[in-house]
């Protein structure tokens, strides 16, 4: 891919990373990654399985500390050594594995770590706020008093997304937020992402779904094998170009598949 142009966001970035690297033993999961997100901007991060997207998310949320590189938040250099540090800065994350406690009920999971009134929990207030929050996301959860373990995959994902909204964050990171969601809930999450942008939050959204990316993202950053492989303004790029950047070639398995579906005579590769 020729276009390694890094498109700067229009406003000044709220969160920016430069030269982030992270290795797990011999595996260099991230190498020299740059990424910026401005207030009121949605940045999609795309890449193949194992490209390092979730690792990047974990660096930003304080789960892993990077081996090299610097993080700037609201123009101040920051280190994010713990998840608590990330939350205190105002970076909320929906993890790919959701990170919910199966033995706790929905309300307790939503307010985990930020319960109302420390020494005398205000359960009524927490329950009403949970219902309001979940209604915003059109969640279909019959009872909030059942343990998380008894919810469906999509219901859990909705709970995880709802939880990230609770602490009035400035940046929200969503790691494949719509992977398990139904049609209505996916639309609701995309609406939510747009509302977050209108409220001036920075949103980093990881997705494998190009339609979702096209629908809500302002820019799309491509990761390939742990390295930056181009950043594009969504308005200026076609899905094919993004897929080419993800797979590293314009002649790739995705375009071959779509070519073979056309009624036109099959090409040599797809015939084999």
């Amino acid at each position, binding site marked *: 891919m020729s276009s390694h142009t890094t498109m700067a966001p229009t406003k000044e970035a709220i969160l920016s990373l430069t030269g982030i690297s992270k290795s797990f033993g011999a595996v260099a999961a991230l190498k020299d990654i740059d990424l910026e997100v401005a207030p009121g901007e949605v940045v999609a991060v795309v890449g193949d399985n194992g490209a390092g997207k979730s690792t990047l998310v974990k660096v930003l949320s304080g789960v892993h500390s990077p081996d090299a590189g610097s993080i700037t938040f609201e123009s101040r250099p920051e280190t994010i050594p713990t998840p608590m540090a990330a939350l205190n800065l105002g970076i909320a994350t929906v993890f790919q594995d959701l990170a919910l406690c199966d033995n706790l009920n929905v309300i*307790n999971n939503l307010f985990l770590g930020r319960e109302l009134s420390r020494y005398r929990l205000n359960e*009524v207030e927490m329950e009403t706020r949970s*219902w309001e929050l979940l209604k915003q996301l059109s969640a279909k959860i019959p009872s909030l008093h059942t343990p998380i373990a008894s919810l469906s995959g999509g219901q859990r994902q909705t709970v995880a997304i709802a939880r990230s909204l609770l602490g009035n964050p400035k940046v929200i990171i969503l790691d494949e937020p719509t992977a398990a969601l139904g049609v209505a809930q996916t639309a609701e999450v995309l609406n939510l992402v747009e509302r977050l942008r209108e409220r001036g939050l920075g949103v980093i959204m990881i997705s494998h779904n190009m339609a979702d990316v096209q629908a809500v993202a302002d820019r799309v950053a491509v990761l390939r094998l742990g390295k930056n492989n181009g950043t594009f303004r969504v308005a200026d790029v076609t899905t094919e170009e993004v897929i080419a950047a993800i797979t590293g070639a314009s002649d790739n398995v995705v375009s071959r598949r779509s070519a073979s579906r056309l009624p036109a005579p099959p090409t040599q590769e797809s015939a084999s």
Partner: protein
Amino acid sequence: MKTTQAPSAPVLTIDRQDERLRTSSGIRGAVDSFLDRVRSGDLGVLPVIAGLAIIWTVLQILNPKFLSSSNLVNLAMECAAVGVIALGIVCVLLLGQIDLSVGSVSGLSAAVVTVTFVNQGWPVWLAVGGAVLMGVVIGWFYGQVFNRFGVPAFVITLAGLLGFLGLQLYVLGPIGSINIPFDSPLVYFAQLAFVPAWLSYILVVLAAAALFLTDLRHARARRTAGLSSRPLPSMALRTAGLLLAAGAIVWYLNQARGVGWMFVFFLALVLALNYALTRTKWGRSMFAVGGNAEAARRAGINVRAVYTSAFVACTTLAAVGGILAASRLAAANQGSGGGDVNLNAIAAAVIGGTSLFGGRGSAFAALLGIIVIQSISSGLTLLSLDSSFRFMVTGAVLLLAVTLDSVSRRSRSSHGRA
């Protein structure tokens, strides 16, 4: 549930709007939801209550003195010391950890109290305070080793078991046994202090009133927030149940010497721990870390502090239990905290329904579990059977309880209740 009182035009509260939710009201609804829970493997205190009923029936048939007032008065007093230790075990089990050293720590604490109080002539509050503080420090030390070096709690506390047993023997010196004078406040508290009958009834009424008022206030807060709330008859029934049950027990015990203050102290600790576990942020963190430590960490919970707090709670309660045991015996010796104290404390927490897998349990588990264990012990002593039988029966009951825990856990995961 008040919504179903007007079946023609039900105004659904915000937590009852999902049409898949079965709404049944009143006693019927309560029974239904109870049966649902049991079927899905959420047994709660049911098995231990049933087990207790069976054990009591059998022992009463074998020896009619078993359920006599005077025997039950003694049984309650015998529960307190190991029961307090079991409360601490509940804390570490909730995190999926274990403390094998509670017996040694309680024995060391007994030795420290007697040496400082009897031999050194310290005032009683200072001697007791010193032993409790020592418990705090031991737990803090465990927490540091656990958090910094990642040594499994099993190994740390196994080392503690040996190390603190050695320290206990060293503190007691060559004679190895120190008697506490019978006129000291410690022995008075553990052997002779009983709640006067009139006061015991007042306490029961106060407890029932407190239950009713908290229920009422909670229901009112939920109603104003537009949530479903416990209907008044159900609250009244709960209160009446507590009033009658506790009143009957207290009346029966008052036929003999009555309710010992030491047992009341144990009950107060149970209630305090129950409050801390269910109604505070700390308690939520305990369940969260026990359920999924990584998720708790990512939610911003200071997981290390939670681990340390549980170890501190456990060893502190073990130290308190050791003081109670020494006071009851009016002595500390080389056998204090030895023998079956360790195993009984752990067995009590598990028999009472605390899961060994972490994330489930309650303070009441320690209370119910220790009553089961002491009942077996007291019943077999009445039958003049020696400790060999006690060990075998307690072992069988423990195995039963752990099997039940594992089975209900499997049932829970197939019913999605983790």
